[in-house]
């Protein structure tokens, strides 16, 4: 059973007081790599002790990478989930390291059976080291690998079937892939196992030179809220979270975005 979370916002050090006092914040998510279990920020301790769920969200496990997942990164995430009393932890279906280089951003995995075998193996390793359920998020990609053998929906479905992981559906990433790669986001929602849905991400972005960038630094575009509506028409998501990472707007504007999300539930 997936924990009921409600509407939340990504906790960032720059907006810690805002997050603490914003009305309508049922839960928060923290970027796992920015925190240490031994020295949690005071604001996070305040939220946790207030009973606000705090979930760690990782960006660097690289479960879609060719290397087995670094045990130290798994241990860090496990310790953090434990210190936060989190009901689950998450990362992305992506890779960030290869050939000695660090991409600095989430890169898509080739959607082949062979790559899927590796991701399944890596996810099982993470699950074995975590004391809580593990959820995986779909990413926004700017390019596609050639020779895909599976659609994104098939890849995510097989991944959840074979590992028992949960799904973190980012509707802004679905929109980005629709705009940039011509994918059909509504069809994907029809085809993924929504009963495995952990929660949903919503974020803003902007179009530049014909490319939609999922910046987390601009307002949510209406089409992303519409996709959230498509999702909530199909299932009642246990949680929805607003991600804002830069160019922080006023508290009122953030509260209005949270209210717009809540109106779709």
């Amino acid at each position, binding site marked *: 059973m997936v924990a009921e979370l409600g509407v939340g916002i990504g906790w960032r050090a720059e907006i810690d007081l805002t997050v603490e006092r914003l009305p309508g914040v049922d839960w928060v998510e923290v970027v796992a790599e920015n925190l240490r279990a031994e020295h949690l920020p005071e604001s996070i301790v305040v939220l946790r002790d207030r009973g606000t769920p705090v979930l760690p969200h990782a960006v660097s496990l690289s479960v879609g990478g060719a290397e087995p997942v670094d045990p130290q990164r798994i241990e860090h995430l496990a310790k953090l989930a434990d210190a936060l009393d989190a009901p689950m932890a998450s990362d992305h279906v992506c890779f960030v390291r290869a050939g000695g*280089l660090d991409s600095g951003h989430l890169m898509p995995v080739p959607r082949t059976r062979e790559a899927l075998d590796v991701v399944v193996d890596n996810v099982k390793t993470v699950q074995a080291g975590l004391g809580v359920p593990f959820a995986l998020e779909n990413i926004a990609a*700017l390019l*596609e690998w050639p020779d895909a053998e599976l659609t994104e929906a098939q890849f995510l479905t097989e991944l959840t079937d074979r590992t028992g992981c949960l799904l973190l559906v980012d509707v802004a990433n679905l929109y980005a892939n629709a705009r940039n790669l011509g994918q059909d986001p509504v069809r994907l929602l029809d085809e993924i196992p929504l009963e495995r849905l952990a929660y949903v991400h919503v974020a803003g972005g902007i179009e530049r030179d014909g490319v939609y960038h999922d910046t987390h630094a601009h307002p949510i575009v209406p089409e992303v809220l519409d996709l959230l509506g498509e999702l909530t028409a199909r299932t009642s998501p246990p949680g929805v979270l607003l991600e804002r990472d830069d160019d922080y707007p006023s508290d009122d504007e953030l509260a209005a975005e949270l209210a717009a999300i809540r109106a779709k539930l």
Partner: protein
Amino acid sequence: MTEPQRERLAESQSRLLHALLADGPAPAGFDRDRLQVEAIALLSKRRRVVAMLQSEACGDLGDRFVPLFDAYGRAHPRRIGTRARDDAREFVEWCLAQGHLDRPRRRRWPFRRATEKRR
């Protein structure tokens, strides 16, 4: 059990990252325009992080920051194990070594020993 798969995946992922980050040859089958879009997006993200972590030095570069960083970034892709902070510092050190930035003058604080008695 997944060894042969891992080896092939490692090779294809390595080719893609070298093309995107280190001016490597375009891997077969990819759309050239898409590779270009992704390469620019990755470089821009790295540049934003460096600008944030070394705001003073990057600010001193003014209009030269973007072209200098982009030239530097392609020639010096971020290696595994390099933290964002180190990446930003290494760029500033490169600017200093190349003469794009002046070495900051050491500040002389007119300090007094904390234990010194006030008269």
